[in-house]
C-alpha cells in the first residue's frame, strides 16, 4: 500500500512536470540577431560621425603614456588616420583597413598596419619601447561602451585603454590643414640637463620623454621636493596633459601657445605667460646623492660604468671616446688600486678580441670633496697607463672632470646616476652599475 501511494505521488509529480516546456526568452531576439544589430549600430555610429573621431590611446606597456589619433572611418572598411607619434604622422594622412567583428565582445579591429600599430610594433627601433613588446599597446579593441559622443575601448591583447570622441569640424581641419603645434619638441635644443618651467611664481623642473610622451615635474612644496609624471599629447596650441598636473596649489591641464624663441620656449599656462628654459641648478637637490653614489661602488670594490662618456652641449659622446682603439667602457673606480689606497680612477676600459676587458689608462683622483650643498669635486693627481696615439678623447674627458665647481649627482634608477656639471649644467655623464 505504502509503495502504491509512493507510486501514485510519483505519477502525480511527473504528470505535473510533464507539461509543455516553453522557455520564455529574456530577450525578444536571438543572440545572433542582437549581435548583428549591435554591430550595425556601432558601424553606423563610427562611420556616421561627419568629422571623424579624435582618439586617445594609453599603451598598457608604458604607465602614464598617452598618444592622440584622428580616425575617419568609412563604409568600405577603410580608415584615414593621423597621429601625434612624430612630425610626419601629425601631417601625413595614412589610410588602412578597419573592421567590426563579434569576437567575445563586439570589437573594433585595425587589421592592417597604420600609425596605431607603430606603438605595438615589437621592433623597439620603431617606437622606443622594448624589443619583442614595443610599447605594449593594442590594435584590436573590445568596445566597452558608447555614451553620447564617446566610445570607450579596451585592447584585446595588452588591455590598453582607448577613448574615441566625436570630432568637430575644427578638430578635423586642424589635422588635414596641418595645424598641430609640435614646438615642445624643441625642448631638446635647451642644452642644460635641467629644464625650468616658470609660470608666474611657480617653478618646476621638467623632464620630457618625446618617444614615450611622458612629462615629469619636480617642484618644492612646503620645503619638500615633490615629483609627478604624466602623459602628454599634442594639440594645435601646444600640449595637453593627461591626467592634468596638480601641484597642490594649482592645476595645469595644458601648456599652450608654445613657441621657440631665443633659446627658450615661451608658452602660456592657465592663461598666463610662462617659459621653459635653461637652468643650471635644480630646484630640489638630493644633497647626499654624491656620497651615496661614491660609497655604493666603494663598498662593493667595484666601479660605475658609462658606455658613451660625456654628453656636452647637446652632443652624445661629445669627445668620441667610442672611437678609441678597442674601447669598451669608461668607468669611475673608487680606490682602484685596492681598498684604503686613496687612488680613484676615471678609467678607460679596453677589450682586445675575446680577452677580458682591462682598465688601461685614464686620469686619477683623490677621494672627491663632497660639498654640503650636494656637489662632488674631483682633484686630479695625474694621468696613468699607456695612452692611445690620439689622446684627445682622454684629455678632453679629463678637462671636464677638472671642473672646479664639481658635479651634481642625480639618482635616476636603483643603480643609475647622472653626473651633471655644476658650473653650466650642459655637460653630464650617465653612470650605471
Amino acid at each position, binding site marked *: 500500500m505504502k509503495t502504491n501511494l509512493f*507510486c501514485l505521488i510519483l505519477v502525480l509529480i511527473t504528470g505535473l512536470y510533464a507539461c509543455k516546456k516553453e522557455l520564455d526568452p529574456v530577450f525578444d531576439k536571438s543572440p545572433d540577431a542582437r549581435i548583428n544589430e549591435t554591430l550595425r549600430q556601432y558601424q553606423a555610429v563610427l562611420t556616421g560621425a561627419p568629422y571623424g573621431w579624435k582618439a586617445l590611446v594609453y599603451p598598457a606597456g608604458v604607465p602614464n603614456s598617452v598618444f592622440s589619433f584622428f580616425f575617419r572611418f568609412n563604409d568600405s572598411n577603410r580608415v584615414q588616420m593621423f597621429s601625434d607619434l612624430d612630425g610626419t604622422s601629425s601631417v601625413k594622412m595614412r589610410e588602412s583597413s578597419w573592421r567590426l567583428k563579434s569576437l567575445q565582445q563586439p570589437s573594433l579591429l585595425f587589421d592592417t598596419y597604420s600609425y596605431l600599430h607603430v606603438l605595438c610594433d615589437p621592433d623597439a627601433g620603431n617606437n622606443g619601447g622594448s*624589443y619583442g613588446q614595443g610599447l605594449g599597446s593594442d590594435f584590436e579593441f573590445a568596445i566597452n561602451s558608447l555614451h553620447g559622443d564617446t566610445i570607450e575601448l579596451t585592447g584585446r591583447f595588452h588591455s590598453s585603454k582607448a577613448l574615441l570622441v566625436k570630432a568637430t569640424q575644427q578638430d578635423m581641419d586642424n589635422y588635414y590643414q596641418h595645424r598641430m603645434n609640435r614646438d615642445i619638441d624643441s625642448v631638446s635644443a635647451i642644452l642644460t640637463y635641467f629644464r625650468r618651467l616658470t609660470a608666474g611664481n611657480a617653478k618646476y623642473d621638467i623632464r620630457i620623454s618625446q618617444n614615450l610622451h611622458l612629462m615629469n615635474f619636480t617642484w618644492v612644496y612646503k620645503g619638500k621636493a615633490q615629483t609627478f609624471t604624466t602623459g602628454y599629447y599634442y594639440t594645435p596650441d601646444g600640449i595637453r596633459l593627461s591626467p592634468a598636473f596638480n601641484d597642490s596649489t594649482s592645476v595645469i591641464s595644458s601648456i599652450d601657445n608654445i613657441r621657440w624663441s631665443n633659446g627658450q620656449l615661451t608658452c602660456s599656462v592657465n592663461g598666463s605667460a610662462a617659459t621653459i628654459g635653461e637652468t643650471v641648478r635644480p630646484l630640489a637637490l638630493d644633497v647626499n646623492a654624491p656620497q651615496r653614489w661614491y660609497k655604493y661602488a666603494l663598498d662593493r670594490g667595484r666601479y660605475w660604468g658609462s658606455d658613451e662618456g660625456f654628453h656636452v652641449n647637446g652632443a652624445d659622446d661629445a669627445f668620441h671616446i667610442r672611437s678609441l682603439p678597442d674601447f669598451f667602457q669608461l668607468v669611475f673606480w673608487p680606490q682602484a688600486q685596492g681598498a684604503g689606497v686613496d687612488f680613484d680612477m676615471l678609467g678607460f676600459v679596453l677589450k682586445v678580441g675575446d680577452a677580458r676587458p682591462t682598465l688601461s689608462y685614464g686620469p686619477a683622483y683623490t677621494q672627491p670633496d663632497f660639498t654640503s650643498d650636494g656637489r662632488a669635486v674631483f682633484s686630479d693627481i695625474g694621468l696613468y697607463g699607456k695612452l692611445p696615439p690620439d689622446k684627445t678623447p682622454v684629455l678632453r674627458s679629463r678637462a671636464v672632470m677638472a671642473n672646479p665647481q664639481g658635479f651634481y649627482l642625480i639618482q635616476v634608477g636603483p643603480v643609475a646616476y647622472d653626473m651633471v656639471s655644476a658650473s653650466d649644467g650642459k655637460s653630464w655623464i650617465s653612470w650605471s652599475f
Partner: protein
Amino acid sequence: MKYLLLLLSLCFLLSCSKSNDIGVIDDIPGLGGDTWIKSPLDRWLHDSLTIPYNVAVKYKWDQFEFDLTKTLVPPKEEKVIPVMQAIRKVWMNPYIDEAGMLFFKKYCPKFFILSGSASWNENGTITLGTAEGGRKVVLYLVNDFFTRDMPGYQPGDSGNVKQMFHVIEHEFGHILHQTIMYPVEFKRICAGLYTANWNNITDAAARRDGFVTAYSMAAFDEDFVEMISMMLVEGKAGFDKIVNGIPPGVSPNGVAQAEAQARLRKKESMVVNYFKTVWHIDFYSLQSRTRKEIDQLLY
C-alpha cells in the same frame, strides 16, 4: 499495478512537448568567414594568385593564425603585392617552368599568412617564417621587405628576403618528400649526428659535420629539405662556397674536412637524383632559375 504506474510516469515524461527550435540560423555573425568590402589589393591577390594557382593570402590581421602569446603587428598594405610578386617570381615560376602547372597546383602550399613584424623569441632571436601541415605558410617581417628597386634598400635587407624564400622552399620540400619519400640511404650519410640540441649549434659548426645548416641536424627530413632550400636559395655557386668554406681540421664530432665536404656532396647528388627520378625535374636548371630571380631582386 506498481509497474504500470511507473510505466505511466515514464510515458508522461516522454510525452512532454519539447520543441527544439534553434532559431534563425542564416545570420550568425562571422559564419562563413570574415567579410569586408574588397579593395584593389584583395582583387589583385584573388586574380593573380587565387585564380591561377589556388593560393590564398591572408594579410588582414587574425591573431589566431599566430602564436597567441606573441606581440606581432599586421603587414603594411603597400608591402603585400611586392612580397607576393617576389614569391611568384622566385618560387612559383621556376617550379612551374620546370615541372608544369599541374605539378605545382597539386602540391603547393595553399595558404599564406603575413605578419608585419618578426616573431621575437625569449632569447632575443627572431623567427622569420613557420609552416604547418604542408598547407599553411606564415611569413614574418613583411614590413621590412625591401628589394633593390625600392627606395631605402640596403644590402643588409637581403638577409630577410632570402630567409623568406628559404622558408617557402623548405616547406615545399617537405610536401614533396611527404608525397614520395627520398631514398633511405640519405639518412645514413650523417647517421648518429642528428640532435635536438641543434639550436645551440652554429651553422658553421654544423657544416664541419656535413650539415648544410644547424637546423639540418634536427631530423633526417629537415636535413633533406634544408639541402633543397639552401641549394635553391644560395644557387650553385653559393652552395659550392659553403662546401669549400669548411675549414681544415677535424670537427669536435670527429669529422674531417674532406669527410664533411664529401657528405654534403653526396647529399647534393641524392637531392638532384631524387628530383630527377621522382619528379622529373632537372634540379640544376631549377636552381639556376631560382637563383637568377633572387639575384635580380636583390643584387
